[in-house]
């Protein structure tokens, strides 16, 4: 019986810690999440249809709003704008590693940054390969680790890359895809990037780049001239912790997936914070390391909630 006293002390200690945890962060706790903006979610962990194995890249067709997601099983899955599964295909090779980003152009072609094979592969929307370009190297038209693909209003193709040769490469429009220039070299200097993980163009043809390892967002004109940047490391307003992707809303404000802070931040074109959505967690309305996001033609924001293996569709 004398041991029961100590058993009770240990149990009380655990209960006290759990109660504190519950009061602060539980489903009805002080920091409970507001999921009211979430229209729907789709996807769960798995290797089946409509399931994800650590998805890392998402893009929405600017034409019909279809959603394309690439995951760590090297699969690209296509969903309609409401998240209903339509089809899928796999990358031709994946032993070296899997893609981390993709983009969809105005003709519904899917451009996948095949990161670990130092190339970009273009598919039609059903997964038929149309073209591939790029090879390992640091020269013109070569890549080390391409991250993602974006398109300016004229159809020029922009590819971000990292791995010691961090820069953005510009190629001519489909179908030539001829190398034009590379820019934003130089890691930490003003105008340089360190791991450009996400790219997006606004209606004025300004390129917005999430400069992930510098914890900031930079902008360039379509010729690669540096126009400025905003953001410092941190968790407050105007601060980012590894921003991974950026998308432009119809009102020309930006939404940025703040990977390390587990939230999506909405900012004006001047960098002023307009709001934030999401907090760290597994419930709807929470995110765990959002790698990517995009805005559909229906105005909804599609957030790739990577560690939760799902996409959250947010009306914001």
């Amino acid at each position, binding site marked *: 019986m004398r*041991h029961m006293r100590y058993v009770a002390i*240990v149990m009380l200690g655990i209960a006290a810690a*759990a109660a504190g945890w519950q009061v602060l962060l539980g489903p009805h706790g002080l920091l409970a999440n507001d999921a009211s903006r979430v229209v729907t979610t789709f996807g769960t962990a798995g*290797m*089946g249809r409509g399931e994800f194995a*650590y998805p890392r890249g998402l893009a929405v067709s600017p034409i019909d709003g279809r959603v394309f997601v690439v995951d760590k099983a090297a699969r690209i899955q296509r969903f309609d704008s409401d998240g209903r599964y339509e089809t899928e295909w796999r990358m031709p090779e994946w032993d070296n590693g899997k893609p981390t980003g993709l983009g969809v152009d105005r003709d519904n072609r899917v451009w996948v940054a095949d990161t670990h094979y130092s190339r970009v592969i273009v598919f039609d929307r059903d997964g038929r390969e149309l073209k591939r370009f790029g090879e390992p190297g640091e020269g013109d038209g070569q890549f080390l680790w391409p991250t993602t693909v974006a398109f300016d209003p004229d159809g020029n193709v922009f590819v971000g890359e990292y*791995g*010691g040769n961090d820069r953005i490469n510009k190629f001519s429009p489909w179908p030539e895809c001829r190398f034009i220039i590379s820019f934003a070299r130089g890691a930490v200097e003003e105008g340089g990037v360190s791991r450009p993980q996400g790219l997006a163009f606004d209606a004025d043809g300004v390129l917005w780049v999430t400069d992930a390892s510098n914890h900031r967002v930079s902008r360039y004109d379509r010729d690669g001239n540096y126009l400025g940047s905003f953001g410092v*490391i941190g968790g407050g307003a105007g601060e980012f912790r590894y921003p991974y992707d950026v998308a432009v809303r119809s009102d020309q404000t930006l939404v940025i997936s703040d990977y390390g802070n587990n939230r999506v931040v909405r900012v004006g074109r001047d960098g002023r914070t307009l709001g934030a959505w999401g907090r760290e967690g597994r419930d709807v309305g*929470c995110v765990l390391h959002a790698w990517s996001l995009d805005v559909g033609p229906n105005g909804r924001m599609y957030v790739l909630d990577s560690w939760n293996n799902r996409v959250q569709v947010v009306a914001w």
Partner: protein
Amino acid sequence: MLIHVVRLGRTAGWMLILFLTCAIAFVLLRAAVTGPAPTLARPGLPPPAAWEVLSLSARDVRIIGKTLAIAGGAVVGSFLLAAPAVLALAAARGRLGRTLLYGLTAWPLLTPPSVIAYAWTLLATQQSWAGHVLTALGWHRTGAAPVVSAWLQAAWLWPIPALILSSAVRAWGLPAYRMALLDARPSVALSRAGLPAVRGAGLAAAGIVFLLSIQDAAIPPIMLIQDTWSSDMLMEVTRAARFADSTSFLLWRSWPMIGLAALAAGAAWLGWGRGWSRSGATAADETGASGPRMRGWSIAAAALAFGVSVFPVIVFVGEVSSADRPARELFGTGLTAHARDFAASLIVAALAGLCGAALALAVIDTGARPRNRRPRAALALFLLLAVMPPVILGRAMIDVFDRAWFVPQRWHWSIYVDSPLAWTVGVAARFGFLPIGLVLAARRWLGDETAEQARVDRATEDEILAHVRARQLVRPIVAGALLTACMALAELQVSSLLAPPGWIGGSLAVALDQQIHFGRNAQVVAMSLLLTLPAMLGAMAVAWLMSGAAAGAAFKSPRSVR
């Protein structure tokens, strides 16, 4: 006061042991009952049949082959690195010298393997003579990745053969060698007496290195090898999510790896047993021989081996000092980026250390019951948990926590799912064998005379435990707790599954591992450098404690045993 602390610690320790016993029994029984054929948790593709789960595809065979090749290379590499260090460790004299050498040796083992691999990959991509040498040696060739992975694992795991063999050499190898020298040539004495005397210890070390190598899911992916068994298991966890009982599926699916791990553990157990029986025969250096004498070449070789320990720090310091931003800014940015993860990891490491201390306290005894099998049963339980693939251990913890029917649903979330408690229990379960093993090893060297004397003086069993045994074993207890804490800080696989979202932060080792994959980044370098610091402090503290332990243990020199 001490009595209450010991009682509380022992109670907490036995509660943890009881919980884990129930948990592991639940998981294993459930796997046995459900069998290898999984059932779906939600509609979807039909589940695989039992034979599909158990059979090995061509890809599985390739994965196993690659895993075995890397593990074999890691064993060879770790022994090559350990050999000169063994001589230096066996020859070490004085508490300060022993602390320094043993601490330097243990340092890499307490450092996250991805951080060690990061240092080497940074060097290999530098535009320096060292980078050119590594490039010329074929570091960047695609086909060389398994060899490089094996080397990196060796650079992480070489402390295991170094520490075990140095103990064995001092205790059994040198006495046998010197005895044989009386009537044999040195080469014959070495091959017929010296080496056979430490064969068991060598087998134990090889088994442990092999086991840790096949469980490693950090180094091969950094070298872009996705298809080793442990790396692939992370994908299998995702695949298993659609099954009603994913842990059972994973257990059945990974039978080859569990079999290999059991073989490695069996070899280690066998070798360890041989070593102990031999130690009984020779009574630990009864010849009165001192340690071996170091010659010029062996000093140089040992310096090379110890250089491997400090190598990551040298690389990181070089990278930080040559970065285009001041070091203070780099550390500031890195700390700001990962401050929450650092705080959370330190808290969980400290809690895991407390669990380690509680487990160590739980298995000490007064000697009143000569046939007390509970401590050895506890050790067997934690060895079983250590042999289990870490991903399955993490997944099993989630399974158990999710199905804790005796806890009201409302409290599930806060007590089990996504709470620091689950994370702490998970890492403590993985490394709990360290404090228990250390204390039981030290206990073997202790006689029962002091406890008997206390009993004659009418001390109660609780008083003997607190004032005799706990005091006698305080160094192994603290060392075991420190080891558990350091290993918890560096742990990757269990933490990646159990670190709770929405808490102070996640696992720093996991966060750094993710950023390390993106290559050179001065902030990540600064944080990696910072993470080597607790490993170094932990290693030195453990070495200091064990080099002066009143009771002999694995690190103990025979001189102070007497």
